[in-house]
């Protein structure tokens, strides 16, 4: 099923979703009218909390307003309804005039008591009549609805109003065309409703389907005719997507990709469980909420590598799962990835991702969420600096079990060279790319003293030289050999290792005087590494390729953390950097 079709399906399955032609909007006040059109009172609908948040009410769907003036039906903000704003509205009078004229036109033939009252109210209203205490100042710039004094239903909920709204909707409809989502003929949506809540996109909302420049159009078609989607389907998919984006249980942020996900299965509780598990796979925040209870236990089992169909067969079979990653681009939204399969496959691929990134010693605080890895790829470790596209491509590869993007390898190596930091997360990324893309069996989980890969051995050797220097000069060296030489040593070892070896002789002679035992141990270690090297096979090559550089990083990480671990064992004698 295509992306839009599955969103439409998600909308149709949701019983709480607003019906076609209506949307959920923030409403602040209700104007109570008498049948003669005079105002009985003004009711504050807002919540009593500190922020006085407006109430969400189902109202006739909002029109798409960009530069023009267009009133909503039977509700709108105070500038339109009454002609009053808090600021200095240049167009306020014009906006109110348009609201009044449009409604007088729409309501001209209305016979319903409520609609007649509104018509009379609009005929008689002057903006000068806006005075406290009847009209509170708070009302400015809030959205308003109406109701009759004698009843408790809002004006837009009256059957007559709903019938009129359907009639208005049908008037503007275009010639019916085949809808590419449903395959049925219907009036085509010219402009699709906005999608709100995508990270870094325009706050007023951006469009998923739009043709905002003429290079994007074909065959002389205009606007929505370029991709015939029926009004009903456009309404359904945007409502579903907006609902998911606003809901913490259906959305996580991965790099610059706002990711929504939903499960589709007969049993709502199972679907909810699948959704909670997915959120916990990739995001720590939601995991903490679940730590207790059944789901937390299942999460542990999945992470330990247990097969899903063994302990949760209802999740493994029969749950369709959808994941959609959206990222903004100019005023548009772009699909970074869209993936659908059953939940069992999704979990198996997640477990594969875990085993590929597994590394000893692990990062300090347990399972890192995906964004922690992504931040390692960003300049200055800032989330907004995560290179675009990588997050989405990587997530797609994790979901599908496909090879990782190779930019992941080059970006990590570049970051290591730039700031000289080789930590658990970076080493884990390097290892997972080697395993998945290069089918490398040489990338070990933990320190492997017998590994004879050139990159790995040189990485270990480099860590030993650094340790010798630290032993001789202490931890307070301004620029250690790592700071000075890591980039060169990992890329062009031949240029550097001779110098390192020469330098280490000086460090060794100093270390022998300070702590002879340590010097002997380090010398033994150094020899054990160089003994592995095969002189006939150019142990210190002129250059290392990207995969060997990655192994260099892993070897360095393993050997270096090994030194620190030993220190931990015998109550460290030196401050750990």
């Amino acid at each position, binding site marked *: 099923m295509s992306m839009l*079709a599955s969103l439409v399906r998600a909308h149709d399955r949701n019983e709480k979703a607003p019906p076609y032609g209506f949307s959920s909007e923030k409403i602040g006040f209700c104007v109570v009218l008498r049948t003669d059109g005079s105002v009985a009172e003004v009711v504050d609908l807002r919540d009593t909390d500190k922020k006085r948040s407006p109430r969400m009410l189902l109202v006739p769907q909002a029109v798409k307003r960009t530069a023009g003036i267009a009133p909503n039906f039977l509700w709108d903000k105070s500038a339109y309804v009454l002609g009053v704003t808090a600021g200095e509205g240049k167009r306020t009078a014009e906006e109110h005039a348009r609201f009044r004229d449009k409604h007088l036109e729409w309501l001209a033939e209305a016979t319903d008591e409520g609609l007649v009252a509104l018509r009379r109210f609009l005929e008689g209203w002057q903006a000068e009549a806006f005075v406290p205490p009847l009209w509170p100042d708070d009302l400015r710039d809030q959205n308003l609805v109406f109701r009759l004094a004698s009843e408790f239903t809002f004006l837009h909920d009256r059957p007559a109003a709903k019938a009129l709204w359907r009639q208005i909707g049908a008037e503007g409809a275009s010639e019916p065309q*085949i809808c590419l*989502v449903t395959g049925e003929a219907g009036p085509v949506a010219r402009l699709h409703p906005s999608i709100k809540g995508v990270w870094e996109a325009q706050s007023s909302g951006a469009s998923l389907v739009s043709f905002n420049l003429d290079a994007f159009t*074909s065959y002389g078609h205009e606007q929505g005719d370029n991709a015939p989607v029926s009004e009903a389907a456009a309404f359904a998919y945007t409502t579903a997507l907006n609902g998911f984006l606003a809901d913490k249980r259906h959305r996580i942020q991965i790099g610059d990709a706002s990711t929504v996900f939903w499960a589709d299965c007969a049993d709502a509780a199972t679907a909810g469980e699948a959704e909670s598990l997915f959120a916990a796979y990739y995001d720590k925040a939601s995991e903490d909420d679940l730590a207790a209870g059944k789901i937390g236990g299942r999460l542990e089992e999945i992470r330990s590598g247990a097969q899903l169909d063994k302990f949760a067969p209802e999740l493994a079979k029969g749950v369709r799962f959808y994941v959609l990653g959206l990222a903004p681009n100019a005023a548009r939204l*772009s699909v970074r990835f869209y993936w659908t399969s059953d939940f069992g496959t999704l979990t198996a691929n997640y477990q594969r991702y875990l085993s590929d990134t597994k590394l000893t010693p692990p990062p300090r605080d347990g399972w890192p969420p995906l964004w922690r890895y992504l931040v390692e790829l960003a300049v200055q470790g800032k989330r907004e600096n995560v290179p675009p596209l990588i997050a989405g491509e990587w997530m797609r590869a994790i979901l599908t079990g496909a090879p990782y993007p190779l930019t992941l390898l080059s970006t990590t190596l570049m970051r290591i060279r730039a700031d000289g930091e080789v930590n658990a997360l970076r080493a884990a990324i390097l290892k997972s790319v080697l395993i998945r893309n290069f089918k490398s069996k040489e990338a070990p989980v933990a320190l492997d003293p017998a590994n004879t890969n050139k990159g790995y051995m040189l990485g270990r050797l480099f860590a030993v030289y650094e340790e010798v220097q630290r032993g001789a000069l202490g931890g307070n060296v301004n620029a250690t050999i790592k700071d000075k030489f890591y980039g060169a040593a990992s890329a062009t070892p031949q240029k550097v290792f001779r110098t390192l070896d020469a330098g280490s002789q000086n460090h060794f002679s100093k270390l022998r005087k300070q702590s002879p035992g340590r010097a002997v141990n380090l010398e033994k270690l150094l020899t054990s590494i160089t003994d592995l090297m095969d002189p006939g096979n150019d142990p210190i090559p002129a250059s290392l390729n990207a995969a060997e550089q990655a192994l260099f990083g892993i070897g360095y990480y393993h050997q270096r953390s090994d030194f620190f671990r030993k220190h931990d064992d015998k109550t460290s004698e030196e401050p750990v950097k």
Partner: protein
Amino acid sequence: MAFGIRLHVWGQHGLFTRPELKVERVSYDVMTPSAARGILEAIHWKPAITWVIDRIHVLEKIRFQSIRRNEVGHKAPAGTIKRAMNRGDLEGVQLLVDEDRQQRASTVLVTPAYVIEAHFVLTARAEPGDNEGKHLDIFNRRAAKGQCFHQPCLGTREFAAHFALIEPGAPLPARNPKAQTAELGFGAPRDLGFMLWDIDHAAPGRPSMLFRAVLQDGVMEVPQPGSAGVKR
């Protein structure tokens, strides 16, 4: 099929743009019939014949990748060019790429490979000298030699298509064994949703024609023109 042909096509990337996601382009999962027709027409086409796609075999896994590129935001207006031609002066015709740049993302298929099964029918413009055997021979000869009028492509021009004729009676190229999964409709048919069948250039407004695409055992059946499967 008496006048059927089979053509093996493959390439590094493919982009069969979905109409609804054509600004930030996203590809269909499988080659569209109109894209297949375009490939055949690149090899042999005359006004006397029209190609009809019967089915498309998918030989590789459906894999996607995102690419972001710089493009231009506007078309060169035909009116401006016409005026410039009448005037004999190029003033104001140019489209300056660095002043009108648009970054657009494309989600493209990676290493797609298909077998197109198709046949052709003679049109009203066929002349007395035209007959099926002649055009079939021309197509087979040209395709076997690798000749084409212009380089065929997998959806968009930048993704060139390689092609090889499958001789009548010869077996189909082997499908990647790793691709024989539920994703390609092995086990149970996989519903791909509605797909563009072709564009009706003869009708006013040039409407799109759609069909319900289903992958079964790696094969997508394409409805025949005029059949109930083609929605218009």
